[in-house]
């Protein structure tokens, strides 16, 4: 006997992601899923944002790493609520890993939640976590060809942040070509250019977050 199923294999993950989003919406928590290759500056961007916005918004962070709590310690040292998830063999955070972390955070007092995904430009694009926006960071030393090499990640992004502007004297990075490639994949994307080292461009990035947070999620 043949039984028609027609179920997407990510349907279980997506259902949990929807539940997570429901929980976050109930408490009006703007949630950003931050993705990039390892070392592009996810934690640095989050730390810069904490520095600029901590007097305006209540922030919290969920850190995803294969191993260690190095990043969580950096956030904790700022006095910001943080939960570290170690994924072990898994190359990406999944929605079911986020649910228990949300239960441990004081969501009623939080306006903005960063979920820092595992450093990887492939797998995290496949798994919704319950976020409102997907932020992809590309750093100048990685080269301007990343959107062409990892198109799906850049297709999924709501916002792309180009980091490490301070290193431009030492490398070649074709901004026009990069923008053209990203906007080709994703015409609605918003692109910011920043240096987490010098603080250049961080104001514009933080203004965008502020506006998104104030818009209200419910």
């Amino acid at each position, binding site marked *: 006997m043949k039984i028609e199923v027609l179920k997407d294999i990510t349907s279980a993950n997506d259902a949990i992601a929807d539940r997570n989003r429901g929980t976050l919406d109930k408490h009006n928590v703007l949630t950003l899923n931050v993705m990039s290759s390892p070392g592009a500056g996810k934690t640095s961007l989050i730390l810069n944002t904490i520095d600029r916005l901590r007097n305006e918004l209540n922030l919290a962070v969920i850190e995803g790493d294969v191993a260690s709590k190095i990043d969580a310690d950096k956030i904790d040292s700022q006095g910001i609520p943080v939960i570290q998830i170690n994924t072990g063999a*898994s190359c990406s955070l999944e929605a079911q890993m986020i649910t228990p972390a949300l239960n441990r955070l004081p969501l009623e007092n939080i306006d903005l939640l960063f979920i820092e995904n595992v450093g990887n430009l492939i797998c995290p694009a496949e798994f919704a976590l319950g976020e409102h926006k997907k932020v992809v960071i590309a750093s100048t030393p990685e080269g301007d060809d990343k959107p062409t090499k990892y198109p799906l990640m850049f297709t999924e992004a709501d916002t792309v942040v180009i980091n490490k502007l301070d290193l431009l004297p030492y490398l070649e990075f074709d901004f026009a070509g990069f923008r053209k490639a990203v906007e080709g994949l994703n015409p609605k994307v918003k692109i910011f250019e920043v240096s987490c080292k010098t603080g250049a461009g961080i104001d514009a990035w933080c203004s965008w977050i502020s506006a998104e947070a104030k818009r209200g999620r419910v």
Partner: protein
Amino acid sequence: MHEFAITQSILNIVLDEAKAAQASKITKINLVIGELSGVVSDSVQFYFDFLKKDNAAEGATIDFKQVPAEFRCRDCSTSFNPKDSLWICPDCQSSSIEVISGRNCYIESIEVE
């Protein structure tokens, strides 16, 4: 690397479906894999052979149906299947590309006894 979780998810879905149909044995799983889904069929097969032991799917085989990605050029509206995984329009060489299909991976049907 996430094929283990994906295969577990496939197994959970088919076991639930078989149970709902009061079937004791699953003989075949018809899986549709979109080119852009990132799912590697050899890895799924490998993990499935490991995970299917001691359950209703033990004797099941998986039929993998690969579906090519379908793109549309935003500049000249040409629809095309990508060649060599390049997201570039074959007609006008534009890189302004919209994904029409190929993202999904789903269980189309199962065959049970």
